[in-house]
């Protein structure tokens, strides 16, 4: 399996959220501001990559009977480490993501990848699998954040960007209030609420299915065209 194929898999063909439908809970719960989305995405990316590497490295010594128990121990270990590091160095992110960081332990993306990929594959492909699946998750979160924040609050880049005295500033401590595109009075507040999470996710899933089907049809058409061409040549 080539790195390029793995990249495409993680981002599009086998996107953890939009195609495999893993980790939907956190996807709907935290995508209210760009700061949260990027923070959560990167946390999962780091944890996923570490877990993938460790589980893949131990795959020969993990007995099949207790593999799930061992996966959970390894995942819980890494999640707690990231949780402690966030509390120590990025307290704003830790405060705004709250319980969702410890809950990464039961995020099915990580155990799903361990089961489906790392327990059979060497360390290097597992490492890239972690990174690309993590990027796929992060991109999905960011898309949802942008849609929900813009339509639900009329702003863009909440927590991450700040406009003060006419200058655009990057705030890495989550204090920025974002760029107000239009007044929040005219925004559909419901999109920020949990219900809006379901709605946005459903629309994204549908769009992804549509795009994937279109791509499949195109491929099939091309294949058929090629076949016809060959047939004609044979006939001639």
């Amino acid at each position: 399996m080539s790195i390029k194929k793995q990249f495409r898999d993680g981002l599009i063909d086998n996107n953890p959220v939009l195609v495999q439908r893993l980790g939907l809970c956190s996807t709907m719960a935290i995508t209210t501001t760009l700061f949260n989305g990027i923070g959560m995405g990167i946390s999962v990316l780091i944890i996923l990559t570490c877990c993938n590497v460790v589980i893949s490295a131990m795959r020969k010594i993990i007995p099949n009977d207790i593999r799930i128990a061992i996966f959970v121990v390894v995942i819980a270990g890494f999640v707690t480490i990231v949780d402690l590091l966030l509390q120590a160095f990025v307290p704003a992110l830790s405060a705004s993501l709250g319980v969702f960081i410890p809950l990464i332990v039961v995020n099915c993306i990580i155990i799903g990848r361990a089961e489906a990929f790392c327990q059979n594959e060497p360390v290097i492909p597992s490492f890239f699998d972690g990174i690309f699946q993590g990027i796929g998750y992060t991109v999905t979160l960011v898309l949802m954040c942008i849609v929900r924040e813009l339509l639900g609050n009329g702003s863009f880049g909440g927590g991450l960007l700040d406009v003060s005295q006419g200058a655009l500033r990057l705030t890495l401590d989550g204090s920025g209030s974002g760029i107000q595109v239009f007044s929040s009075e005219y925004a559909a507040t419901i999109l920020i609420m949990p219900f809006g999470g379901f709605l946005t996710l459903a629309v994204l899933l549908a769009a992804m299915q549509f795009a994937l089907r279109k791509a499949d049809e195109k491929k099939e058409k091309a294949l058929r065209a090629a076949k016809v061409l060959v047939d004609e040549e044979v006939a001639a």
Partner: protein
Amino acid sequence: MKEKKKSKSQILRLTLILFLVSALTSGVLGYTNSLTADRIKEQKQQATAKAYNEVLPFEGDYVEVTEFDKASFPTVDTISKAGEEGYVVEMTFSGAQGNITAVVGVDSSHKATGVSVISHSETPSLGARITEEGFRAKFVGAEEGTALKNAGGTIEAITSATISSQAIVDSVNTAIAAVVALG
């Protein structure tokens, strides 16, 4: 996998492997904790100190008042005296989604000097806006009996976040009452 009755030695082997993995993980966690514990404590202290200074700026030390009526004010965690300036009251109370920890400054004439939220788990863009300067500024100079506009008061609630707004109004009233009760 072959269907085979597990022998005692195999069970022992599985237990041992799981034990070793768990022990190793605990070791790594313990090490991380020892590295970060001080810093996490420091971060929390800094956040609290910043909040104290924001609601009632004071040059000296905030001295904790140990004798207050905890039974009458169950949400009050600590009350600290800022010299002659007044008091800072630290409280934990419930908002719309979970607990809110906030400090309220009360001056010597029993008027609120400011509110600052240390931690909360309100909905981002809705209840979470209680941390915004614009909302908190409305409480500067508030007296006991402050209320939201819909209850005949003067404080305008955050749109779609009446419960969170009400929680902050209540906390300001409680803080003032607790300080008045000190005498």
